[in-house]
C-alpha cells in the first residue's frame, strides 16, 4: 500500500486513461465493459481515499514526474475537488453497471467496445479537469472530455443525435478556445501556469487590462461549457438524443465539473474581491441564473420528449447553482457545491429510469408512456424519488441543497430571491407532476398493456441512485462536512 498511496492523485487519472485504449483493443463488448468497470471502480476507490485524506490531513500536492511546481505540473487535491472527483467517478461506476443491457440495445453490435472506450476517456477528462493544479492542463483535459462526449452523443440511435453532437462540437470548441485565450493572457502577464503560483501573482497586477480580458474570456468560456443561460443552447438536444447511459452520466457530471472550475478560478485565482468587488460578476451571474431558473422550467413544461424535458430542467438547475455562486459568500459556495452533488444524483436517477422505459418501449415521448407506471412499478418509484428530489421535497437530497441555498440568500437579506427560488420550484412541481400523471393515471395504449420491468442489471443501478437521493436527504453528514470544508478552502483562497 505504501507504494500506491503517495501516487493516488496520478493514478486517479492514469488508470482510466490507460483503460481507454485497452477497451478499444479488447474488441469484445463484455471484455471492454469489464475493463471500463474495473477502471472506474478503481477511480472511485482512489477518490474516496483522497477525500478521506484531505478531510483529515489537509490538502495534497502531487508533483507529476517529480518536477517541482511551478515548472512541473502539479496535481492539487483538497476537499473541494476531492468532492467533485468522488461525484464524477461514483456516478460513472453506477452508470457503467447500468450500461451493458442498455448499450446492447442502443448501440450497433460490433461498436460496443468503442462506446466503453469513449465513456472511460470522458471520465478521464472530467477527473483530470477536477484534479489538476495547472491552468493549461485544465484545457487539455477539458478537450479530452469534450471530444469523447461529442463521439458518445453521436452514437445515439436517432439521426438527430448527429446534428445535436455537431452543434455541441461547435459551441464546445468555441468555449474551450475562449478558455485557452484567457489562459494565454494570464501566462502573458504572469509567466506562470501553476494555479497556486498564479494566485500569488495576480494581486500584484490587479489593475492591468490583460487581466480583465483574461477574466472575461475564462468566465465566458466556462459558462459555455457549463451551459449557463443564455449559452445553454447545445444542452437540450445533446442530452435528449444521446444514448441513455450517456445522458445519465453527462447530465450528472459534465456541467458540474465546468462549474467547479469556474468556482476555483473565480474565488481562488482571481479572488472574490476582484471578481465581485472591482468587476460586477455578481450581476453578470445573478441575472442569467434567475432567467435560467424560469426559462428552463417553463420550456421543460412544454416538452413532449421527456429526455428533453429533463434537459431543460438541467438548465434551470444550473441556474440554481450559478445563483449560489453569485452570492459570493461562504454559505453560497457551500450551497453551490451541495447542489452540484445532489443535482448529479437526481438527474442520474431520472435519466437512468427513462433509459429503462426506453429499453422496453423504444420511446421517451410522454404520450407513449401513458399508464406505464403500473406496469413498471420499480422504475416508476425511481422516477417519483428523483422527481421529488428535483423539486426539493423534504427528506430528499434536493431539499438539503435548496435549504442551504435559501439560507445563503437570507444571510444577505435577499428576500425577493427566496421568493423567486420557491416560485421556480413550483414550476418544477408542474413538469414532474405531468410525468407522474402520464405514467400512473392515464390508461396504457392498446399495444402497451403488458410491458415488463427493464432487466435487473438496469433496474438495480437506477434504484441505487434513487435510494441515494433519499439517503443524502436524511444523512447529510458526509456531504455537508465535505462541502463546508470545501467552501472555507475556496473562499480563503487556498490552493
Amino acid at each position, binding site marked *: 500500500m505504501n507504494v500506491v498511496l503517495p501516487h493516488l492523485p496520478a493514478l486517479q487519472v492514469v488508470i482510466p486513461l490507460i483503460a481507454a485504449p485497452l477497451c478499444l483493443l479488447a474488441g469484445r463488448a463484455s471484455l471492454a465493459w469489464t475493463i471500463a468497470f474495473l477502471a472506474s471502480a478503481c477511480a472511485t476507490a482512489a477518490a474516496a481515499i483522497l477525500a478521506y485524506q484531505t478531510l483529515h490531513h489537509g490538502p495534497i500536492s502531487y508533483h507529476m514526474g517529480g518536477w517541482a511546481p511551478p515548472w512541473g505540473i502539479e496535481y492539487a487535491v483538497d476537499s473541494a475537488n476531492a468532492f467533485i472527483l468522488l461525484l464524477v467517478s461514483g456516478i460513472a461506476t453506477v452508470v457503467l453497471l447500468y450500461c451493458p443491457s442498455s448499450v446492447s440495445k442502443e448501440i450497433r453490435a460490433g461498436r460496443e467496445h468503442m462506446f466503453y472506450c469513449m465513456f472511460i476517456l470522458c471520465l478521464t477528462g472530467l477527473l483530470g479537469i477536477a484534479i489538476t493544479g495547472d491552468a*493549461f492542463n485544465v*484545457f*487539455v483535459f477539458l*478537450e479530452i472530455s469534450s*471530444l469523447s462526449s*461529442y*463521439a458518445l452523443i*453521436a452514437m445515439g440511435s436517432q*439521426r*438527430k443525435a*448527429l*446534428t445535436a*453532437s*455537431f452543434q455541441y*462540437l*461547435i459551441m464546445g*470548441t*468555441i468555449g474551450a*478556445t475562449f478558455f*485557452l*485565450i484567457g489562459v*494565454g493572457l494570464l*501566462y*502573458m502577464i504572469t509567466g506562470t*501556469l501553476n494555479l497556486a503560483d498564479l494566485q500569488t501573482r495576480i494581486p500584484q497586477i490587479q489593475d492591468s487590462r490583460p487581466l480583465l480580458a483574461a477574466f472575461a474570456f475564462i468566465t465566458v468560456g466556462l459558462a459555455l461549457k457549463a451551459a449557463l443561460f443564455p449559452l445553454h443552447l447545445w444542452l437540450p*438536444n445533446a442530452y435528449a438524443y444521446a444514448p441513455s447511459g450517456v445522458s445519465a452520466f453527462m447530465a450528472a457530471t459534465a456541467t458540474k465539473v465546468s462549474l467547479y472550475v469556474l468556482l476555483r478560478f473565480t474565488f481562488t485565482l482571481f479572488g472574490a474581491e476582484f471578481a465581485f468587488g472591482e468587476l460586477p460578476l455578481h450581476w453578470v451571474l445573478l441575472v442569467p441564473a434567475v432567467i435560467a431558473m424560469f426559462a428552463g422550467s417553463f420550456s421543460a413544461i412544454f416538452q*413532449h420528449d421527456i429526455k428533453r424535458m429533463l434537459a431543460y430542467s438541467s438548465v434551470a438547475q444550473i441556474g440554481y447553482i450559478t445563483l449560489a455562486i453569485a452570492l459570493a459568500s461562504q454559505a453560497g459556495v457551500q450551497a453551490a457545491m451541495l447542489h452540484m452533488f445532489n443535482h448529479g444524483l437526481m438527474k442520474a436517477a431520472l435519466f437512468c429510469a427513462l433509459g429503462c422505459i426506453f429499453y422496453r418501449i423504444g420511446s421517451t415521448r410522454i404520450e407513449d408512456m401513458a399508464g406505464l407506471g403500473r406496469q413498471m412499478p420499480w422504475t416508476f418509484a425511481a422516477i417519483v424519488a428523483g422527481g421529488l428530489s428535483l423539486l426539493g421535497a423534504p427528506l430528499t437530497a434536493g431539499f438539503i441543497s435548496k435549504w442551504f441555498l435559501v439560507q445563503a440568500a437570507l444571510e444577505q437579506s435577499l428576500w425577493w430571491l427566496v421568493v423567486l427560488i420557491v416560485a421556480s420550484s413550483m414550476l418544477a412541481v408542474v413538469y414532474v407532476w405531468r410525468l407522474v400523471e402520464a405514467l400512473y393515471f392515464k390508461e396504457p395504449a392498446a399495444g402497451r398493456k403488458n410491458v415488463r420491468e427493464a432487466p435487473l442489471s438496469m433496474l438495480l443501478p437506477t434504484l441505487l441512485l434513487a435510494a441515494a437521493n433519499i439517503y443524502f436527504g436524511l444523512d447529510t453528514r458526509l456531504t455537508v462536512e465535505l462541502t463546508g470544508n470545501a467552501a472555507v478552502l475556496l473562499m480563503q483562497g487556498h490552493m
Partner: protein
Amino acid sequence: MLQAILDHYNYWIAIVLMMVGFYTVVARSNLIKKLVGLNIFQTSVFLLYISMGKVTGGTAPILDDRYTIYSNPIPHVLILTAIVVGVATTALGLSLVVRIRESYGTIEDNELDLMDGET
C-alpha cells in the same frame, strides 16, 4: 499610433483572424464552412501564443554557449498540444458531417433544422 499598430502587427492579425473565424462559424449555414471558420478561429489563438513566446532578437531555444537570448519555448510547446486538439476536433467534426450527409442528404444547417419536424 500607426507605429503602435505596426509594432504589434502579429497581435492585430490574430484579432482579425479571430473575428473572421468567429463570424464564419456564426453566419454560415454550411457545416463544412462552419468547421473552416472554427479552424481559423483556433489558428488565431495559436498565433497569439506563438507571438507571446517570441523574444526580440532571440533565437530558437537551443542549449549552446554561443546563444544567450532565445525565445520562450513554453508557449510554443503548449500550442503544439492545442494544434493536436484542433486536428482532433476537425477530424471528429468532418466525420460527423459525413454521417449527417449520409442520413439527411444535406449539410446546410437551415435545411437540417426543417427536416425533423419538432426541434
